[in-house]
């Protein structure tokens, strides 16, 4: 990437000699991976719902699969944004919906029930990762009720606020003559 971006740099502009430590934590990388996974899965669900329902023996539920695909894509986009924590919690909720939908197809007369069991196992594994990433990427903003430093003495006017106000009033009372 630097090789590419250096193409647009002017000769003489500083170039990286040695990189410093990154702010990215492993959980940020995990969130990113889950975000892209979510978009990929969502695209498959949206574009090929019949293949999925046929694999699971749940024919007739294509609209639901499509809707889940849209949900996956939106959660994925959110997981890749600066609001990734909200995206990851949306994924955790989505995992619950996925599991519920799969369980509804786990009936004794379903010839593909072993596929459903496998899918449930995968949803469980991904849900654990989603939950872990959501926990670890919680915003580090201080809670509203946290005690904060206040700055009641920082007026910025060395001669005092009243002096600043009265100085402005004097100028207003004696305006500068308009330029001719």
């Amino acid at each position, binding site marked *: 990437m630097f090789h590419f971006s250096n193409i647009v740099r002017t000769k003489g502009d*500083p170039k990286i000699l040695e990189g410093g430590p990154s702010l990215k934590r492993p959980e940020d990388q995990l969130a990113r991976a889950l975000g892209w996974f979510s978009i990929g899965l969502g695209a498959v669900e949206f574009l090929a719902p019949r293949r999925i329902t046929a694999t699971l023996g749940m024919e007739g539920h294509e609209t639901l699969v499509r809707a889940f695909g849209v949900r996956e894509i939106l959660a994925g986009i959110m997981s890749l944004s600066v609001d990734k924590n909200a995206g990851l919690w949306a994924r955790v909720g989505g995992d619950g919906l996925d599991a519920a939908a799969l369980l509804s197809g786990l009936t004794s007369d379903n010839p593909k029930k072993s596929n459903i069991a496998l899918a449930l196992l995968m949803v469980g594994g991904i849900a654990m990762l989603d939950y872990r990433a959501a926990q670890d990427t919680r915003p580090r903003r201080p809670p509203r009720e946290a005690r904060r430093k206040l700055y009641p003495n920082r007026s910025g006017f060395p001669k005092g606020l009243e002096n600043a106000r009265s100085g402005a009033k004097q100028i207003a009372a004696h305006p500068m003559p308009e330029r001719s």
Partner: protein
Amino acid sequence: MKALVWHGKEDIRCDSVTDPEIQDPRDAIIKVTSCAICGSDLHLFHNFIPGMLPGDIMGHETMGEVVEVGSGVDGKLKKGDRIVVPFTIICGECDQCKRGNFSVCETTNRKRHLAEKVFGHSCAGLFGYTHLTGGYPGGQAEYLRVPYADATHIKVPAGIPDEQLLFLSDIFPTGWQAAVQCDIEPTDTVAIWGCGPVGQMAIRSAILLGANQVIAIDCLPERLSMAEAGGATTINFETESVVERLNELTDGKGPEKCIDCAGMEAHVMASQPDTLLDRAKQMVMLESDRPHVLREMIYVCRPGGIISVAGVYSGFSDKMPMGAFMNKGLTMRTGQTHVNRWTDDLLRRIEQGEIDPSFVITHTVPLSQGPEMYQVFRDKRDSCVKVVLKP
């Protein structure tokens, strides 16, 4: 040298990079003595403004000492001079510079074709602020090349600490221009949205320009307390209705002058559904800005009033209430600040002790801690309002 380098969304690193070199006779190199993180740097940190590339050096609030000058600087600067570097790079010769419209200098954006595609016309080159504005390396570094240095500088005297002078580079003239654009009259109420560093400067500027009443709007107690110290009546938008309170404070007439110091990343909260919609659209790239403050200003501003926009907007905003804007006969004034238009006056005010802009600094750390401070500033941890970095 060490510099804070953009590597991607939420990824700024303190890297070792090659030293800058004189590229043009009008260049100068400065050894940076102080630099700061600006609220608008957070838009780049979040990658909300397009045009950053991995390897770009951040920063546009910088001052230092001249260590090398090109042959074309023409005696206007010499080694050892102490200068503040305006964030707008100016040639001082084009039609716009001659009119004092320095932030739209016609010469200095070396990638003007990109800006022309996006904005219709190019604006000035800026330090460390995307390739749309020239892709110039920024000043959060140990050294900085100042292009067009014969014009792009503010000479400052010895004897005044960096902390009092540094903000001549951006936030002080930005707050000042925001207030000047309001044509403040002694009977005016000026309402200011956003009490970050630019908002704080706008509050002081409105007081110095003689506003009858200044009202500051934010949700963070530390920022509201600082605004109150500067002479503002405060509104906490999380606990009060902004519209109701503003009407109450102006006998139902609304403030004559409104200043937006929040910009494209307006606070998102469930009680304001438009902010949720904006955030969702911004996430899927259907809208680049979250203009809640603009909408609210248009709604509450007194008919015939002035709206001044100092907060940064990058592209497209939806659901603008143009009906209210037009029928109320409002005037909107905007723009990146024409820094050098104001700095003689502002430097004089600092020298005479009328104002000390260092009041806004809450954190001073070595440059190497810059990446962590981006997070602290973004998350409003430790009551952070303004970060100064020392290379």
